[in-house]
């Protein structure tokens, strides 16, 4: 069975924010909420400045605290493909997952009252398509694929480059990896 991960090559990100727009469009994300975002970190002193661009989304953790804390089992880890997903009709809106998530990946849907988050576009992946943000990425900074397959692009990238994950100290074992060739990772 495939285990899906995302690799984000930060050097290739141009900060166009097209991923955010396509995500909102594809998933009908309510106004004022985002399932993905691009962080712009400026460091240094003028004129010697550096900007780090870092796309962030749900990390689809292997040890997802949101799933552990959910009282109803509405949040779950799909064992077959490793995605952290949500059964919306079971969510009571208790917000324990939001408190548990170290990445601020979740929000309460303002109209429907359930928790909502990035699904790795599971509805597209099932049909053999890439997630919307990956498909639209102009610099091919976002790469999506199966980490179990040693010949997949993500496996090759992770083999050949130094990669890191966000807040791995939180014990979450994230499935979104970052490759940063320009600025030092935090």
């Amino acid at each position, binding site marked *: 069975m495939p285990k899906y991960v995302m690799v984000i090559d930060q050097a290739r990100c141009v900060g166009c924010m097209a991923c955010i727009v396509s995500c909102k469009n594809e998933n009908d994300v309510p106004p004022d*909420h985002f399932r993905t975002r691009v962080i712009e970190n400026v460091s240094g002193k003028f004129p010697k400045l550096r900007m780090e661009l870092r796309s962030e989304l749900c990390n689809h953790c292997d040890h997802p*605290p949101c*799933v*552990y*804390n*959910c*009282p*109803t*089992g*509405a949040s779950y880890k799909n064992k077959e493909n490793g995605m952290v997903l949500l059964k919306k*009709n*079971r*969510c*009571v*809106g*208790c*917000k*324990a997952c*939001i*408190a*548990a*998530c*170290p*990445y*601020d990946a*979740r*929000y*309460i849907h*303002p*109209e*429907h*009252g*359930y*928790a909502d988050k990035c699904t790795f576009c599971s509805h597209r992946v099932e049909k053999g398509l890439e997630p919307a943000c990956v498909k639209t990425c102009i610099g091919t900074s976002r790469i999506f694929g199966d980490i179990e397959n040693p010949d997949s692009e993500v496996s090759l990238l992770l083999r050949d480059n130094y990669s890191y994950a966000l*807040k791995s100290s*939180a*014990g*979450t074992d994230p499935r979104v990896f970052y490759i940063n060739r320009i600025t030092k990772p935090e």
Partner: protein
Amino acid sequence: MSDLLQPIRNFFTALKFITKGGTGYYAWLAFLAMLIVYGLYSYITQLDQGLIVTNMRDQVSWGFYISNFTFLVGVAAAAVLLVIPAYLYNFKPIKEIVLLGEMLAIAAIIMCLLFVISDMGRPERGWHILPFLGTMNFPASLLAWDVLVLNGYLAINCIAVFYVLYKLSYGKEYKMSFLWPIIILSIPWAVSIHTVTAFLYNGLSSRPFWNASILAPRFIASALCSGPALMIILFQIVRKVSEMEISNTAIFKIAELIAYAMGINLFLFMAEFFKEFYSGSIHLAPMEYLYFGLHGHSNLVAWMWLAFIFNLSAFFLLLRPKTRENFFTLNMACVMIITGVYIEKGMGLIIPGFIPGTLGEIYEYGPSAVEKSVSMGVWAFGALFFTLLLKFALPVYTGKLRFKASESGD
């Protein structure tokens, strides 16, 4: 036929006792009813428009409701401070009033459950959390544990209180052999409602303010202050408006126990304060926000120092026998402890878990008008429930209210 009607007649006898009272009593009921209706109206607004009418956002996902819930879990567990001296040490003056403590626990747990329901975005799906009926995520989710222990504690106290009242209302002695196991069970259970609620916050690795092992012990220590302090004040009111006798010995003993609990609470606070500020790691930020303000955001600073000063001075007032046994200073200390712990174990515990957020954002939270009025409504409902329960229980306890048994001799 008359046998079957007897329980109904008894019900009306009880109803007569509950509805009879002076002007002050009716004014109190009307005042509470008004708050409840207003709270209900606000809650309907919240149901209609969603949680957006509260000031909770993605950054601060738990707010005033969960703060009140946390404080009330503490009040509920405080009954154990009466149960232990009453039954384990057979301390007679407290044994006479242990029932009141258990009734306060029932009222507090009911308020807890109402606050949790108020906090839900989709309360109509609440049954999913229940065991068997729903798809409860047990044992992974601490919230599922919380559902079990809170409802269990409610059941234990209901059985204990209503069994005693039932027996007394028919003029019979209650059997200690039946009551004893329930009482014994209620002691660890009271500790468990605290521990589980504390663990609910404690287990979140991304929230450094909560992810400290001192959280659960401090929780219990502060609960053993606030609940009994509330009880001391309630005892004096009960003593004044009813014929129930509550001895000073009992009240002073409870005050002494509060002093010890507060001593432990202050010590644990100091331990936490030292560790954070001396090591000055990145985990210091929430503590800094609470006590000194962070990047110009300092909504809670004045409150937290007020709580600290209140707790400290109440500790000394209750420690000295002279001030402990003077009703003016005793009541002052109790009010200070209730306020202090309400700040410290309410907003002071929940909000810094979210400030700064996991992305380093600071969203300063304060309850919205809807949150305030719904909370007021819940408190009023708890007070109304407790008042009516007392109005029934006190005449039974003092022997004024006795039901006639059915003729078949039940």
